[in-house]
């Protein structure tokens, strides 16, 4: 049966319009801004009360105060204990919670429409009458400090902590997380004072979306929040975000790391910047997704990593660009080379018509999917209002993306992607990373996992000592979850060049282009597995007839650590 229509992807149907109405906006006498969006598709309501002061407003001696205050709002009020509040909210089948971020803190609630006034009462209870009970504060502090300890065991956190410090300098965006000491210091009086100072109607926006009438909603907000007294808006003066003038390398020495966590960071635009749309498209081409350039290069083509991406984090007063990947340590230098190749390419040549079209199609296509649920729609409206975006931002988002040209992409790439002043941050084995990455930067610093500065000289490999001779039979063992698996390696060396064979449970492989540099040994053994050629990378450090290192292969999720000795020449 000839079915020609199956041979290629079908034509799309006629596009359908996607229209979002304008929300209404009023300001109460006490200064509270109220945004109401009637969405009658389902009998639900979503409420957000956002305060335009977040973690960045914490003073240096009260870091973590805003986030603690937000978390404690639902742990006890004048009329409710933590427990009775949870019971009351869940008896309505509803949800209520509070949290904070760099730029704002928020209390969120959602419920079935018939329970709207009950939820407004509970919302006003946690916003206006929290009591911060001592026993709940003790439990919160103990659990939070456990969480901070766990956080320091994660390479991704250690990298983020350094990136924030380097990119934002004296600006409070530089603080990635409070410390245990910061949390210890917080007491009930501080929470109450912070609440009094920052939870004021004239620095807040209420967004209500759902099956509601604007007039009724306005009356409810008047009823529960009309008597709330305004205060003095926080007018903190923020230090500037520093400009960068050179390429730097910051290493966090994390012992036992089998991978290097690479972040290449640069200052980026703030959320309200008019470059937003071209930046989104440029980033989609460069690295936002699994069909973007850096993913296709570092993962699909080179197999250095399971994922490589770029992103722009845009805050109210500034932002950052990051290119990130977790790679096996032995290809740290190679990965930097490929990253910098892609960063240069997006600046040097105009993107192709196909790439531009695919990136724009993705961004315009997923936009309505994000607005399908009421929570998703609410998040979009909150973003628009909190960051002061254009009044028709939601209505014109897709047109704005569609109007981005290849020239716009090139212009914004040249404006923000500046490889020559990038901050490279890498978490992992500092000695090995330094050897591979030092040539990429003008300035180098090394820290331990607690944030203490270490002496770079302690990680230098003295000059290039005469290459060790690795010729012979090596008996190695992989330690795989407590099991010892044998590996045999047969090598011959000519100058720095190595050839030989590697045999392990991954099969037999031939080494042709291995290298010795100092005491570091690196090679790829190519073997045939079920008709496909498979590259197994081995890297090790050789000292006095012993070798330690790691083996990585595309079919193994994590590098396998090995050690062993020279068993015969």
């Amino acid at each position, binding site marked *: 049966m000839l079915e020609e*229509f199956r041979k*290629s992807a079908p034509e799309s*149907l006629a596009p359908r319009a996607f229209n979002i109405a304008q929300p209404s906006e009023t300001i109460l006498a006490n200064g509270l801004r109220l945004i109401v969006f009637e969405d009658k598709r389902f009998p639900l309501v979503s409420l957000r009360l956002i305060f335009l002061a977040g973690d960045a407003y914490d003073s240096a001696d009260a870091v973590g105060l805003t986030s603690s205050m937000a978390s404690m709002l639902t742990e006890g009020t004048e009329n409710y204990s933590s427990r009775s509040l*949870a019971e009351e909210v869940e008896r309505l089948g509803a949800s209520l919670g509070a949290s904070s971020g760099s730029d704002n803190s928020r209390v969120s609630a959602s419920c079935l429409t018939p329970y709207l006034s009950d939820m407004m009462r509970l919302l006003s209870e946690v916003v206006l009458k929290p009591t911060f009970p001592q026993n709940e504060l003790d439990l919160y502090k103990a659990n939070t400090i456990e969480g901070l300890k766990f956080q320091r065991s994660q390479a991704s956190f250690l990298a983020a902590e350094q990136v924030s410090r380097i990119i934002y300098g004296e600006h409070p965006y530089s603080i990635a997380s409070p410390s245990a000491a910061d949390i210890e210091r917080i007491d009930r009086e501080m929470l109450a004072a912070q609440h009094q100072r920052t939870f004021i109607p004239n620095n807040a926006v209420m967004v209500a979306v759902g099956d509601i009438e604007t007039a009724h909603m306005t009356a409810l907000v008047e009823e529960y929040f009309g008597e709330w007294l305004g205060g003095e808006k926080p007018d903190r003066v923020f230090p500037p975000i520093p400009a960068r003038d050179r390429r730097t390398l910051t290493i966090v020495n994390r012992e036992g790391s089998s991978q290097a966590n690479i972040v290449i960071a640069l200052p980026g635009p703030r959320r309200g910047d008019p470059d937003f749309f071209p930046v989104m498209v440029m980033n989609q081409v460069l690295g936002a997704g699994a069909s973007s350039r850096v993913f296709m290069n570092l993962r699909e083509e080179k197999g250095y990593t399971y994922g490589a991406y770029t992103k722009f984090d845009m805050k109210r007063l500034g932002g950052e660009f990051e290119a990130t990947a977790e790679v096996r340590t032995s290809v740290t230098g190679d990965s930097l080379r490929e990253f910098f190749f892609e960063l240069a390419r997006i600046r040097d040549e105009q993107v192709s018509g196909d790439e531009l079209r695919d990136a724009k199609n993705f*961004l315009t*296509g997923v*936009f309505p*999917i994000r607005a*399908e649920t009421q929570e998703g729609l609410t998040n979009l409206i909150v973003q628009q209002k909190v960051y002061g975006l254009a009044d028709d931002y939601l209505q014109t988002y897709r047109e704005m993306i569609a109007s981005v040209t290849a020239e716009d992409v090139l212009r914004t790439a040249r404006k923000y992607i500046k490889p020559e002043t990038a901050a490279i941050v890498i978490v992992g084995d500092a000695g090995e990373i330094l050897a591979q990455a030092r040539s990429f930067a003008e300035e180098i610093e090394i820290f331990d996992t607690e944030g203490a500065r270490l002496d770079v000289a302690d990680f230098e490999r003295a000059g290039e000592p005469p290459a060790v001779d690795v010729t012979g039979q090596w008996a190695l063992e992989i330690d795989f979850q407590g099991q010892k698996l044998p590996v045999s390696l047969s090598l011959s060396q000519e100058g720095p060049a190595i050839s030989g064979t590697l045999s392990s449970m991954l099969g037999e492989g031939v080494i042709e282009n291995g290298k010795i540099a100092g005491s570091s040994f690196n090679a790829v053994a190519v073997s045939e597995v079920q008709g*496909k050629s498979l590259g197994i990378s081995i890297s090790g450090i050789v000292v006095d007839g012993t070798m330690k290192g790691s083996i990585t292969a595309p079919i193994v999720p994590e590098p396998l650590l090995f050690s062993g000795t020279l068993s015969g020449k």
Partner: protein
Amino acid sequence: MSLNFQLQPLELHQFDLANGLRVVLNKVDSIPVVSLAVYYDVGSRNERKGRTGFAHLFEHMMFQGSENVPKAAHFQYIMKAGGTMNGTTSSERTNYYETLPANELPLALWLESDRMRSLAVTQENLDNQREAVKEEKRLRYDNQPYGEVFDLINRMIFRNFSNSHSTIGSMEDLDAATVDDVQDFFRTYYAPNNAVMALSGAFEIDEARSLISRYFETIPSQERPAPVDVDEPAEVAETYLEYEDKLAPFPAFLFGWKIPERRSPEFLALYLAGKLLYDGDSSRLYQKLVKGDESVIQLFGFTDERRGPSSIFVGAIPKPDRDLSQIREVIMEEIRDLAINAPTGAEMQKLANQLINDTVRVRQSSMARAQQLAEHALYDGDPALINSELDELLAVTADQIRDAVSKYLDSENRALLDVVTKKSGTN
């Protein structure tokens, strides 16, 4: 605070193609997106001894290309059209789904029909996906703390092999798979008469019908696979097991009970009992253990719903150095209290409101609607249950919950899996 709530019924159009493919359409125009869900009536329950993991291996194979769609291009086509997609495998079924801008409906139908009629079952794809699945097994099960506990407790609860073996399967069985086995499996289970398809979102009914006919009606049907015997004795297979998890940072434990099949009155009652025990900050066990005693880091529980005998679990990761037997006693005391005193009026009110809220909330997403419709069409032969299942749940009484808890949970007929951390001195 009782709510007289009337759920707006979804409008459904159903039809079968001549080859046996069952189709459900649900037109909702408010947002210009469309979701497509294809459910095949094959899960780990269909696997026999020596061939475990096939259903899941197949889910991977379905992304490896077909006659007109190159290898791995499925994903690229969807992304470049501005869509999202995935596939999953359970004991009951294997599903595939995508959400796209409404005008890309033909693309979704083209992609799904091409793999249903002409999947590339080749040695190369099989080898390559077998390795990918093994990697997934290492990453998600073998190399994760607590990664194997649910597979272990299923083996403790169920005696019938169809129910007790894991969806991920064994490495040996995956290695033993030949291209012929896989081709047989495809022919038997990936036939249009062994599948249902649900469409929800913005489209015209006539246009969707004619597109579906165009892409699917020439795919030949196959002989229906033999029904699976999932019968079980009432007793669990094993009541206690201590398991050493070398990766676990803390000890943990998990209770599991064998309970009647999904949608039976007793299953519904036990599902609600579970919500009262472990769901949310006001649940009985959260208030007792995480708040009151401050003895537990994490508390969890859920029901595993199947067309045959099903199960319910409650587990906890206690804080270091806590007495596990005492925590278990608190859990059993709460269960006993429900079995004797039944849920309170306030708890029944909470359940009613949560059920209504959850039902409405899930319906907002075209993907969730398509999935629920496909599930009811496949398991129950009646997608319209999406409009009546809420009433069935709301009709469950406190006494029914009490009786079901008394019969099934307050019992020595349960599995207890004790997870201990790495023992010193062992490798």
